[in-house]
């Protein structure tokens, strides 16, 4: 549906109506009764029937489309925002003699140039060559082993959020380039967490790209849903202490040009993490729908219904929603500045999603379904 466009004559009439003494008070009065439009229509200032003023859009009427970036990001070889969105890394799974599940991951810190907007490259510090790092996923009570090798040019660590012994916290020891360290701890409590480098200067080690999502599922699982991970991040490409590119999952405007396809009425779940540096807060706003916010994902029975959620640095929430209508649903930071600097995307709700199309459904009926 296209918006109705006023013709030049209508504009002149509107102006004339203003000059002719439709006082502010009258307009407000009419508006409060919902009659402003009728009154203006009666005065001849507004067209009575929609569509009667159907002048075609001018050559420069399309600013909505002119906003944004030029070109598309090239193939990366390691990181693809489309795949990353629904990629959960459960690790190499073994079962210990006592029956406990052990999950193991290999992490390598690497210096690597990544494409943060088409044609714009950022000298990142990465886990496994990608920003954000792999999305780790496990179930409460699992034993986790993260074997970390520092192949970068600076000392790094991996600091996990959650409960664990301080010596496994990733504050110490500092892993120097060429060294290795294995983090081992029990996954608890269930919820949505994150990990990031905790080497000083902290701000630089985080904004250079050393962070990722760490999901601990409740033992009983969550309701099957189309699940995705979104890491709100930003890049200070000119190193002036201020971000030039904002995004979810690194690539500016990526999901605007590649809308995320979901089914109408399907339960959708977003694991939403804020790792933005330099800006105190970031936010998530959904168009044409409302979502449930499970704060830190730790209490499945408590949520808030909203369409905008504000998050501090390091804050993360599980969002759930169902889109009721087919079509494009925009989502973006409600800080307009962040949105227009890249943190903007679309959900495309489709009546009937073919098998294998869109965001896959993950069912988690508890521990037995994992791995």
């Amino acid at each position, binding site marked *: 549906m296209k918006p109705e466009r006023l013709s030049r004559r209508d504009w002149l009439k509107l102006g004339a109506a203003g000059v002719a003494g439709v006082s502010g008070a009258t307009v407000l009065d009419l508006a409060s009764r919902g009659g402003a439009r009728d009154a203006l229509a009666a005065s001849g200032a507004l067209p009575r029937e929609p569509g009667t003023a159907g002048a075609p859009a*001018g050559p*420069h009427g*399309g*600013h909505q*489309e*002119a*906003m*944004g*970036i*030029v070109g598309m990001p090239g193939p990366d070889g390691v990181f693809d925002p489309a795949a990353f969105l629904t990629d959960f890394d459960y690790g190499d799974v073994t079962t210990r003699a006592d029956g406990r599940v052990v999950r193991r991951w290999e992490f390598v810190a690497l210096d690597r140039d990544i494409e*943060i*907007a*088409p*044609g*714009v*490259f*950022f*000298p990142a510090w990465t886990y496994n060559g990608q920003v954000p790092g792999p999305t780790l996923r496990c179930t409460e009570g699992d034993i986790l082993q993260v074997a970390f090798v520092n192949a970068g040019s600076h000392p790094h660590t991996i600091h996990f959020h959650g409960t664990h012994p301080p010596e496994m916290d990733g504050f110490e020891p500092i892993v120097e380039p060429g060294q290795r360290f294995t983090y081992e701890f029990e996954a608890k409590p269930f919820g949505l967490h994150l990990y990031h480098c905790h080497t000083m200067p902290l701000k630089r080690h985080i904004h250079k790209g050393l962070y990722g999502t760490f999901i601990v599922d409740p033992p009983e699982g969550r309701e099957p849903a189309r699940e995705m991970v979104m890491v709100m991040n930003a*890049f200070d*490409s*000119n190193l*002036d202490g201020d971000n*030039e590119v904002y995004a979810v999952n690194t690539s*500016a*405007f990526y999901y605007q040009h590649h809308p995320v396809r979901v089914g109408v009425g399907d339960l959708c779940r977003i694991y939403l993490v804020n790792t933005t540096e330099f800006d105190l807060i970031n936010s998530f706003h959904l168009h044409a729908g409302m979502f449930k916010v499970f704060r830190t994902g730790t209490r499945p029975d408590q949520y808030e219904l909203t369409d905008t959620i504000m998050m501090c640095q390091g804050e993360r929430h599980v969002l759930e929603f169902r889109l009721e209508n087919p079509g494009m649903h925009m989502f973006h930071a409600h800080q307009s*500045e962040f949105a*227009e*600097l*890249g943190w903007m995307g679309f959900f495309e709700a489709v009546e009937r999603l073919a098998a294998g199309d869109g965001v896959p459904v993950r069912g988690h009926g508890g521990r037995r379904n994992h791995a």
Partner: protein
Amino acid sequence: MPDSRSDAGPRGQGPGRWVLGLLPLALLAGLVAFFFGADPTAPFRDAFPPVEDLTIERVSFPESGVMRVHVVNGGPEAATIAQVIVDDAYWQFEIDRDPTLPRLASATLELDYPWVEGELHVIRLVTSTGLTFDHEVAVATLSPRPNALYLTTFGLLGLYAGVLPVLIGLLWYPFLRRIDRKWIHFYLSLTVGLLAFLVVDALEDTLETSALVAEGFQAAGLIAVGFIGAIVGLRALGNLGRGMGGAGSGGEGSGSAGGGGASRGLTVAYLIAISIGLHNLGEGLAIGAAFSLGEIALGSFLVIGFALHNTTEGLAIVAPVADRRPALRHFAFMGGIAGLPTVLGAWAGGFSYSPTLATFFLALGAGAIVQVIVEVTRLIRKSWPQGVFTPLNATGLLLGLLVMYGTALMVTA
């Protein structure tokens, strides 16, 4: 050594001297070739990120909803424009060439951007390495296009600011003819004061404008070429003029005030007119640019200020011929030479302002005025045995500075 010298026979003759002249050049060429071949600085270069330096020279607004960004790469290496941010929002653009700009290459970007009349906009280029280069448009306004209306408008502005005031200033001629010789020198000194102020003023403008010049264009070098070039060029022109006027070699001798005096005064007057013309070209650029950059209030003040300023320039032109009787047509010519460049400058500045050219012309104007001061001082010295700095002349000079200061207040008020 003495032997070889005597072997060479008469020095400076024969084909051998060309070899001697070219030998250093050949060595230099060899050195350059070796440097590029061996590339001894490669280890340093690899250790550092690329040096990029893009400059937005000008942003124009050809129509509602469209902006054009004129970029030049003033850095030592090529740079690639990857994205553009306008007012903190990425905005799509079209570029008229490959987005990788070699050193000193320029490009024009066109954006469908809903700019707002009279408001501030910030354009930021993002290169492939994530570096950013900003340009602020203080007041966005529709850019003038070279049609009849704007040509006329800018032409009239130039007339108001340049031609008419100079012609009005020339009207002091009959007055100057009726006063005592002593007072003529007072007015000549006043002229020196006026011009000395202009030199300082023009140099300040030059330096201010040079800050906007892309680094690769070497603003300091431009200023040196313009400033010194004007002094040397006009001096040579003056000597040529004196030669044709029959005033002899025009050396530093002091007793030649009498012979060929009429044409000598006229030559100086013409030199002053040319110099002021060069200077007014820069003033015209400033006026045109102020209007096209939307600083209309500033433009209006500039016109009034320059008009007052330039009236005194008319005086400067006629003072050297106060005791002669040149033909009337000379006044018209001199007025045109001094004033018309303002019109040309206003056109150029209004339609395609370039800080690089403006810097050059402002420096040229400043140098031209220095040479005029030299000429006028010489004129006083030669025809006034009491010397240049008599109390009366010194008063005139200081008064000239003060008059200019007063009228300059109008320009920036």
